[in-house]
């Protein structure tokens, strides 16, 4: 049975190892899709609708086509079709420079017959709202209802009840490298695309289908990628159209979305509004939970959220609907449905605990079925100094008040089948590892090198890793669901083990020892029964001559495991005069399974916490009901965390077993709930709406006074 071995035996796995791409990234050498410059390359741009809802009456491309430097103009929307949200694609151009492309876009004339729009959920759900989806009544999907146990019986047992409404607005991904591609046709039948994507094979297959080509005649390359967070799987309209522009012009074309378009059409985390009534027994058992909620994923559905979350509730009823608005569609965003659900649930838990007169941590201990989190509560509480928290919320004196809160999360991330990989040992001692996954910033390239180097007694820098290229024809899944490492690691490990076995078979006769007695040490192969028999790595591989060893790997269920629990504790300081919340410290205790690289694992936890902090305090897509436009489609008014917002973060890699799991998403889940609870503990008034901005704090404080 394959295993990762004991921690004490690992030379590299589980250690802190700088990522292999570091040097290229700090010197500016790393080429992202946005940086690709091909000979003769044209620049593409897309004209998008500024109107949220309209009939397309006419599109006139002629002036744009006549502009010198413009090489192609294509119409995307048909006359007679509908525009359904701001940012929807109307036409695209390819020109000699980006500035000319920009000019050309302005020369396209579009006649739109404006239709009444709804861009906020309140407007969409209003009685006389314009109907924007033919298949839904009242702009709402059919309710999704779940019932368990006996709700009324549950409430009958409850000693305390809480009824409250929690809300989290739409958040956008804000990938710093916007979505986009560079497309180049070698000939009529062969297309190469540099794509900023989380799934090179998904993009390959989509484009092959769109252009009716055999899949292996489309090559997709993503050497480095500037953030996706769930929004970059398919090629999108822009990807298919840039390939079309390249085909028409016979030249490579680069088309990257503008920052504004990135906010409007490249995905978002759906909103959540939930009205909950819940009860707990006198001895602190969560006993009944009744939730009615909705959210919007734009014109599409997909606005699900977790409710209830992680804690056991025997008697429940939940009812959820999707609300349609004339706004760009949602896409998966880091732990879809979880952080907003966790925020509401953890807020509710604290409200119930307070009614019971119970420490919120104690109340969680009673209701949380996860043994892992039970241990994490103890560790996290120690680390933050939970005893220092206000036993009476808002009890502190002075203008600036401090408080502490806790939140929880749960994720899958166990990986799956579908990855092919190849590990090659060349006669000069070099080693190559190739697979079709992609490094979206999580460090999978380095993880692969660590696994192979551990197997061979080499250093990670000795391993040449190729990922992010469909060319070698070794598929792997898209990087989503925190599945990448757990999907790829077992296959790489078994490929390396198979290659090592082949090398041992070649070397064993020379060492005069049975194959089973051979082991790798530091750049050597030795015989375990007679340690005087050794051969240096390069000497061993030198025997291979032209005959390099190249082995594929296999999926191995035993090397991975899904299911990760996490807990976070927050300490905040609230300025009661200006309403500002400053997070002082976050303790993130994150179940990680076997962390292949402790350093990059900590980075992932930090990153999740910071994204969660943004959701808690800063981020909100603002729609103008009147014009139907997004008010903050830039990086100034849509605020993501910057240096001033960063607290002390204690990321604790909580190892529970020696199997690989994924942790890209889970660390962002508990943060908003922990911060919201800390704010309450500081000031004694609860803000039930994210983001917790100064206006909401001041309003809440004023209401408390009144």
């Amino acid at each position, binding site marked *: 049975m394959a295993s990762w071995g004991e921690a004490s035996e690992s030379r590299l796995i589980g250690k802190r190892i700088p990522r292999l791409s570091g040097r290229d*990234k700090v010197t*500016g050498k790393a080429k*992202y899709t946005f*940086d690709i410059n091909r000979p003769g390359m044209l620049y593409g741009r897309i004209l998008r609708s500024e109107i949220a809802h309209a009939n397309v009456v006419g599109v006139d491309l002629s002036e744009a086509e006549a502009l010198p430097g413009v090489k192609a103009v294509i119409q995307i929307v048909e006359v007679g079709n509908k525009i359904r949200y701001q940012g929807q694609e109307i036409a695209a151009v390819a020109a000699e420079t980006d500035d000319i492309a920009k000019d050309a876009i302005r020369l396209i004339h579009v006649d739109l*017959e404006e239709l009444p729009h709804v861009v906020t959920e309140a407007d969409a759900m209003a009685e006389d709202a314009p109907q924007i989806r033919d298949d839904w009544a009242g702009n709402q999907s059919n309710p999704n209802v779940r019932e368990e146990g006996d709700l009324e019986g549950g409430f009958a047992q409850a000693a305390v009840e809480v009824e409250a409404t929690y809300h989290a607005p739409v958040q956008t991904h804000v990938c710093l490298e916007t979505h986009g591609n560079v497309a180049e046709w070698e000939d009529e039948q062969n297309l190469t695309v540099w794509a900023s994507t989380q799934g090179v094979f998904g993009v390959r297959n989509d484009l092959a289908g769109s252009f009716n080509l055999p899949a292996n005649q489309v090559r997709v390359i993503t050497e480095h990628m500037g953030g996706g967070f769930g929004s970059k799987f398919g090629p999108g309209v822009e990807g298919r159209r840039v390939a079309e522009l390249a085909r028409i012009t016979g030249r490579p074309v680069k088309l990257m979305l503008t920052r504004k378009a990135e906010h409007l059409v490249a995905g978002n985390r759906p909103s959540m509004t939930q009205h909950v009534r819940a009860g707990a027994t006198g001895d602190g058992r969560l006993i009944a939970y009744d939730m009615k909620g909705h959210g919007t994923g734009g014109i599409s559905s997909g606005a699900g959220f977790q409710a209830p979350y992680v804690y056991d509730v025997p008697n429940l009823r939940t009812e959820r609907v999707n609300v349609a608005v004339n706004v760009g569609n949602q896409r998966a965003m880091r732990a879809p449905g979880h952080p907003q659900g966790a925020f509401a649930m953890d807020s509710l838990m604290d409200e119930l605990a307070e009614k019971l007169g119970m420490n919120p941590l104690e109340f969680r201990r009673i209701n949380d079925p996860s043994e892992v989190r039970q241990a994490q509560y103890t560790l996290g509480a120690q680390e933050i100094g939970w005893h220092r928290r206000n036993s009476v919320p808002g009890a502190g004196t002075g203008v600036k008040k401090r408080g502490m809160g806790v939140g929880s999360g749960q994720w899958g991330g166990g990986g799956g089948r579908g990855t092919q990989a190849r590990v090659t040992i060349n006669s000069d001692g070099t080693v190559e590892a190739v697979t079709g996954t992609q490094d979206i910033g999580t460090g999978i390239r380095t993880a692969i090198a660590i696994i192979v180097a551990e197997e061979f007694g080499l250093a990670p820098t000795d391993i040449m890793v190729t990922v992010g290229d469909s060319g070698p024809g070794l598929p792997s899944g898209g990087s989503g669901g925190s599945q990448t490492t757990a999907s790829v690691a077992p296959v790489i490990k078994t490929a390396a083990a198979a290659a090592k076995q082949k090398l041992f078979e070649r070397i064993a006769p020379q060492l005069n020892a049975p194959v089973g007695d051979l082991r790798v040490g530091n750049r050597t192969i030795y015989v375990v029964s007679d340690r005087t028999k050794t051969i240096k790595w390069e000497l061993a591989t030198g025997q291979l001559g032209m005959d390099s060893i190249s082995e594929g790997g296999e999926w191995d269920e035993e090397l991975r495991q899904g299911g990760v629990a996490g807990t976070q504790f927050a300490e905040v300081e609230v300025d009661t005069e200006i309403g500002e919340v400053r997070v002082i410290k976050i303790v993130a205790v994150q179940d990680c399974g076997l962390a292949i690289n402790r350093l990059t694992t900590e980075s992932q936890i930090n990153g999740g916490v910071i994204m969660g902090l943004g959701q808690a305090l800063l981020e909100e897509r603002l729609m103008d009901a009147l014009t139907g436009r997004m008010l903050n489609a*830039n990086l100034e008014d849509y605020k993501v965390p910057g240096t001033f917002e960063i607290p002390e973060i204690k990321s604790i890699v909580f190892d529970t077993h020696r199997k690989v799991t994924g942790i890209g998403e889970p660390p962002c889940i508990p943060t908003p709930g922990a911060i919201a609870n800390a704010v309450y503990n500081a000031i004694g008034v609860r803000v039930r709406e994210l983001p917790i901005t100064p206006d909401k704090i001041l309003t809440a404080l004023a209401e408390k006074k009144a």
Partner: protein
Amino acid sequence: MPDKEKKQGTSISRRSFLKGVGTGTVAATVAPSVLIGGEKAADAQEGDAVASATIQLNINGKPYQVEVEARTTLLTVLRDGIDTSGNNVDLTGAKLICDRGECGGCTVMVDGSLVYACMMLAMDAQDKQITTVEGLADGDDLHPVQEAFIQHDALMCGFCTPGFVVSSAALLSENTKPTLEEIKVGLSGNTCRCGTYPFIFDAVKAASKKM
């Protein structure tokens, strides 16, 4: 219902307006160096929005002759520019992220000061020393900030990294022993979406010990 029909045609964004204004200023004030471009510079003097000229930029100690329009930003030259012999400038370390001075992804040094290259017109960068992230290392020897960023994993996707590296190097050249607060202030013009900040702070501290 003609009154309901809207024409979505030519529109001027805030930035194209700004760059347009820049055009006039450039043509008026830096005419002598623009004149290097000969005929084309004459167009620029008339304030034509798409007038172009050949200018010289000194980037990482190397002269580049590039043809630019009055509205062309320094960032466009670095990333997309083609010099007069037909070679790509190809200094793509500085990134285009927000295109309006909000994120610091395009940070470079101009005469030792930090500049958002997306907000500077190429013509305004003449007769100055421009240093990009590609110019920080001394051959194979990385700048201490670069070395520290690698060791402390102060990067994830790495898209923001060149901007942070340049800002950090500039910070340490002015203040070799910054406190955490000073680091936060010094890097407040840069944004990272992956959330690498804690390790960036660690890296800058570590680098400061080597300065």
